């Protein structure tokens, strides 16, 4: 067909591991991996070391990004038991609040009902609250969102019952949005068996019936986000492999393959990867920005040539069709065969305030 031009992708859920985990990834390598995957804007999660929970750590993160990023970047503020007021004060400098209602990698698990309620009361109603909330926690979060009139965004939805719950929540008028990862759309517990620790993440890969339910209910899904969560091979092969898989570089070829397989239209792909994340997190449209793709290029995903520092992908060996050729941001070619701009080209993105 020739070249396909799409709006630059926005990945609303990544872990760039900086500060504190730079052996796995840092802002430069992670944002480079983003560009290689046609992603121009990433929203980075706060479960770093130290976690991003106050003005000081947010400012640190901002400084690091301004020096090191090659794509644009926004930040979530993490909820702790002691920071509801301070977090709320940062609401217009962040993509959203992130609350961990279940255990995953990192120090930010919310155990305390009083603190949870304080966050739901204090965080501004017109800014989103993103939650890691599996199963029963998801139902709880939706309930709180309804009671306190907050905009809730459910991260990495993976189960049939969760997507059914979200459908019901939307139909009841709740302001709930959700995201799904490529790995939950394309892999199952059978693949987890095959991949061993390289197939381990939170939430874990599910049954085939859950995977099918995600596709069947794609109309309820607002956006696709990778939950890019790199760990080194040594860590994954160690005694207690941490949960998480990378995904930035592989998302677009996998989605384009779905388009080629007629499971997804290009228009829906653009909604899921560009317009919906902008709308949900209230972010400004990236200027003069697009991705050029060869939609017919057949290749096989693998670890060779990956820019993510961890150097592997759970999609190793998967045949795909669709290759990123060029990425333009603010009118400049930022990626063509390789990253074409210096660290610091990427800008920190904050929500767009509208007057009146």
């Amino acid at each position, binding site marked *: 067909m*020739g070249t*396909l031009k799409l709006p630059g992708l926005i990945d609303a859920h990544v872990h760039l591991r900086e500060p504190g985990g730079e052996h796995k990834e840092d802002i430069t390598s992670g944002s480079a991996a983003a560009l290689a995957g046609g992603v121009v804007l990433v929203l980075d999660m706060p479960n770093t070391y130290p976690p991003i929970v106050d003005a000081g750590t947010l400012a640190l993160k901002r400084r690091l990004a301004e020096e090191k990023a090659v794509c644009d970047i926004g930040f979530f503020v993490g909820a702790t038991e002691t920071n509801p007021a301070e977090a709320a004060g940062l609401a217009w400098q962040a993509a959203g609040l992130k609350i961990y209602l279940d255990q995953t990698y990192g120090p930010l698990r919310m155990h305390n009902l009083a603190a949870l309620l304080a966050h739901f009361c204090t965080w501004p109603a017109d800014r989103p609250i993103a939650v890691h909330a599996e199963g029963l926690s998801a139902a709880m979060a939706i309930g709180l969102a309804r009671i306190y009139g907050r905009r809730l965004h459910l991260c990495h939805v993976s189960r049939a019952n969760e997507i059914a719950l979200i459908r019901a929540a939307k139909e009841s008028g709740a302001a709930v949005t959700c995201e799904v990862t490529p790995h939950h759309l394309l892999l199952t517990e059978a693949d987890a068996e095959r991949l061993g620790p390289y197939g381990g993440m939170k939430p874990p890969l599910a049954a085939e019936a859950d995977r099918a339910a995600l596709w069947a209910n794609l109309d309820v899904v607002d956006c696709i986000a990778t939950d890019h969560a790199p760990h080194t091979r040594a860590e994954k092969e160690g005694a207690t492999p941490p949960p998480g898989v990378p995904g930035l570089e592989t998302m677009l070829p996998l989605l384009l393959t779905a388009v080629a397989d007629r499971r997804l239209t290009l228009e829906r792909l653009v909604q899921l990867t*560009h317009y919906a994340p902008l709308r949900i997190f209230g972010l400004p449209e990236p200027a003069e920005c697009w991705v050029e793709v060869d939609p017919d290029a057949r290749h096989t995903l693998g670890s060779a040539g990956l820019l993510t520092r961890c150097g592997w992908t759970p999609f190793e060996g998967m045949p795909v069709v669709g290759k990123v050729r060029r990425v333009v941001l603010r009118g400049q070619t930022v990626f063509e065969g390789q990253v074409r701009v210096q660290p610091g080209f990427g800008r920190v993105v904050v929500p767009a305030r509208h007057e009146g």
Partner: protein
Amino acid sequence: MATKPSNGIKTVGLAPNLQSGFYGQDIISVRQFTRENLAHLFKVADEMRAVTKRVGSTDLLKGFVLAVLFYEPSTRTSSSFVAAMSRLGGSVIPINEVKFSSVTKGESLPDTIRTLESYADLIVLRHPEVGASQVAAEYARKPIINAGDGVGEHPTQALLDLYTIESELGTIDGLHVAMVGDLRYGRTVHSLARLLCLYDVRMTFVSPEILRLPLDVMNEVKDAGRPVRETYDVHDVISDLDVLYVTRVQRERFADQSQYESVADYYVVDPELMSKAKERMVVMHPLPRTNEISYAIDSDPRAAYFRQMENGLYIRMALLAAVLGKA
């Protein structure tokens, strides 16, 4: 069904000003155009016409600078680009009198381009050598617009010609287009014929023997699957034409003046010829004209050549805005 010249870019979900595919592009050859990006450009040109007629100008390109670098004279084309940029609120560095610039001190084209692009956001180039614009584009980091390179291409003229056909007749598909006069050296004809291949048209080429359309252009038209014929006499086809595109036989293209004399006035578009033409059709000419269109035709509503020239302003405004990503 012929395959169209491949540019082959499909866009999905992009903002309108990024859809055209022209952003940051060099405009060197009509081969870059597709029905899709032409449709977009024509729509923008319609908007430019409306704005220019209503308020005269806009600030769409305020703060941008266009360098107009003309190695060959052309008041018409250069002033059209200057006017287009000015009416969009941008400014112009005009270099028409090449003899006063460092070019006559022996500066190469690439160096001249590289100097100008430090000052300007894009460069319009007219040069006597075929392929000069391509060379300029290879050295330049800013966009180059080809305003004519020798007997090669003149893409913006072809754009305004095509835009005129669509504006006047409402469509391009299904038309019978005749090109008359100097088809051998007339680059406007070569570019227009190539662009017309994107549409479902029939073409007739009318010229004396020594000014026939060059074989490579003829082959392109045939390869595109468009019906084509050649004839010596415009009277053969006038009653069937939707577009009569007339060109001047250019004295400066002839080394041998007696050859020029033999073909200079071999046809004239006059009221007698027009009485045989359809009621709804257009006469076009890239201007300047000499004797080949009688002044008596000027008031005929089918005489579109002055409106055609005006369209040049709107098309160039559209192109400048599109290349700078503002439309």
